[in-house]
């Protein structure tokens, strides 16, 4: 069914002046889809949701772009998440990611169809590909966006991203070059719901890759990396144990949480006396000073001697049954409860 007549209707209703951009004829919002284990990558789905919202705002189509044989089978799913049209380049030559072939394929498609906005998820693939594509297209790319929106007065994409380790945001636009490209940081955008009844067009497209040779040989898609050991004072996440954990079993919960969060475990002098940790893991004035992004204090009261060792932490969570414990006043989040019960609940929620 052709809904094309709705386009003009939408524009009329809203009465918006559709500003023509420099480099006339650039229109519509594209999402380059990425697949993970045979399905659409969650980050792609989030990006689709964002694209859909923005397209509705300015009254244009959302195009999904799929590359590779496996990928094109996901066309319907893309539509269900909000794509109006899907460009499917199902040639086997695109089954495997190669910067050169993907750049060529997308650059050609962009040249033919001229999207005004082109989005990718800021995954490993997106981060690798998007800047090369932007350079090929001689256009601007706003990367790692935590927020995207349209400036309606100028019909410009505004991308907001973190700087200074996340303490600040910058917002940037690409006023003239087209398409305006952005990569969206996974986890910052809502996941839209699937609408199986949505319909859209899938168009199979051919791409000429004759002068684009991939130069990567993929040797191992499931490699492992040994992480260099990080000393406690440089750890980004620390889970700290105090006497309130009761016994070795309680302490093991703290260790588990540390492992789940990808951090290190530490403790108070009380934990040392109980034999749960060695001297080198004692945090506080007589031990180590830490400055992690996240410090989780489990079952420890946290007087000044302990606090002095953690005062440079970015965010402190305290879990203590006693809401009057000193740590509960200085922590950012003070969970009132028995750590021996809260920790298992946290582990459950995190590993779900």
């Amino acid at each position: 069914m052709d809904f094309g007549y709705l386009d003009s209707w939408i524009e009329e209703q809203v009465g918006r002046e559709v500003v023509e951009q420099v480099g006339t004829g650039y229109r519509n919002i594209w999402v380059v889809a990425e697949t993970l284990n045979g399905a659409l990558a969650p980050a792609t789905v989030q990006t689709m949701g964002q694209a859909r919202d923005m397209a509705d705002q300015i009254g244009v189509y959302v195009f999904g772009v799929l590359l590779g044989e496996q990928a094109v089978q996901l066309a319907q799913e893309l539509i269900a998440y909000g794509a109006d049209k899907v460009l499917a380049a199902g040639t086997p030559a695109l089954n495997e990611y190669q910067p050169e072939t993907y750049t060529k394929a997308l650059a050609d498609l962009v040249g033919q169809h001229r999207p005004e906005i082109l989005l990718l998820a800021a995954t490993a693939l997106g981060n690798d590909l998007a800047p090369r594509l932007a350079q090929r297209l001689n256009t601007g790319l706003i990367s790692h966006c935590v927020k995207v929106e349209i400036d309606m007065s100028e019909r410009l994409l505004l991308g907001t991203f973190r700087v200074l380790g996340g303490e600040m945001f910058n917002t940037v636009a690409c006023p003239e070059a087209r398409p305006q490209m952005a990569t969206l940081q996974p986890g910052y955008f809502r996941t839209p719901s699937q609408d199986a009844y949505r319909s859209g067009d899938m168009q199979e497209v051919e791409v000429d890759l004759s002068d684009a040779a991939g130069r990567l040989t993929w040797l191992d898609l499931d490699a492992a990396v040994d992480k260099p050991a990080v000393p406690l004072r440089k750890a980004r996440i620390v889970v700290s144990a105090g006497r309130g954990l009761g016994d070795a079993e309680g302490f093991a919960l703290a260790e588990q949480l540390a492992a789940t969060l990808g951090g290190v475990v530490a403790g108070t002098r009380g934990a040392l006396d109980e034999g749960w940790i060695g001297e080198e893991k004692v945090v506080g004035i007589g031990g180590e000073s830490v400055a992690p992004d996240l410090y989780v204090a489990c079952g420890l009261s946290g007087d000044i001697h302990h606090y002095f060792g953690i005062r440079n932490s970015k965010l402190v969570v305290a879990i203590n049954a006693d809401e009057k414990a000193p740590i509960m006043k200085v922590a950012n989040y003070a969970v009132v409860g028995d750590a021996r019960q809260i920790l298992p609940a946290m582990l459950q929620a995190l590993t779900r």
Partner: protein
Amino acid sequence: MDFSFPKEHQLFRRMVREFAENEVKPLAKAVDREHRVPLETVKKAAALGLMGVPFPQKYGGMGGGEMGYCIMMEELGRICTSTATVIGAHTGIAAMSIYLDGTEEQKQKFLTPLASGRLIGAFGLTEAQAGSDAAAIKTTAVRDGNHFVLNGAKVFITNGDIAGIMTVMAVTDPSLGAYGGITAFVVETDTPGFSIGSLENKMGIRGSSTAECVFQDVRVPKENVLGQFGAGFLTFMKSLDIGRASLGAACLGGAQAAMEGCMEWTMAREQFGVPVATKQSVYFMIADMAAEIEALRSLIYRTAWLIDTHQPHIKEAAICKLYGSEVASRCIHKAVQIHGALGYSRDYWVERAYRDARISEIFEGTNEIQRIVLASNLFRPYGLRIPS
């Protein structure tokens, strides 16, 4: 007049600071507790050229001059006095004596392994009956063919038990006294007859070793005479004179650490509802620390400049040691007071710093000797001779 450090020295300071924070600091508590020398740190320092900072690169040194050396000693002193002492004794007096008075052959043979850190150096002067009265040494060196045979015992020798090379003062002619009767020698410690006696059990700088060194018929080639024969006393004094500046730099670092620690603690510690840093009795103490540190800093680096530009510096270097050690002591004394009971706890750095600081008024020439040197230099232009 440009008082800023040359850019290479600024970069050098940043490197040493990072090294001190990451490699030295984690061991500071342990080496004090276990009364052991951090040889692993010495090895890492050697790999970065830090065991020969003031010496020219052609002798395996870093080419940093006295200024670079004072910078390093300040940064090490800020983190661990023991480590500063180990490296300081090696560089500032032991290797330095060879640099100042050695022949070209001696520099190639002995200074190079020291400057590159392949061997550790020690300075063998003090004896049981000869401390401030250095001329009262009794270790003898008797000529025997192409060798000198050394007999005697030195005490309180820093690095004595880990040194590969030791510069030793010995009596070559008892009838001539200090000037003419004492000669300096370079002794390789693997020479038969050299042995280590007891190690001192010290109040502080327990991360450095202080050894009794025994010489029993130690045969030293005559080529190892350091400086002029019979002028050993002068050779050693020259080395001690220069060494004082960098010792003052280590004290500067210690004082700086005391002040920084006090500031951090007093901003975090609350009493009577406010950070104690807002209490006048406290911030006056910190302000006094800052004033003395600033004055000491200017003194140290101006003295380093005098040394590097080959200008007279004996008086200034003596003040560096005298004033530096007393500033460090005053600052750490205040730091203990400011930290209250915490300053008395062996679990925290303050009491270690307190114990470590005490030696600085005693070794490398007591502060009483420094006052004599200073007064002597003050009155000499007027023709008045202050005897030592």
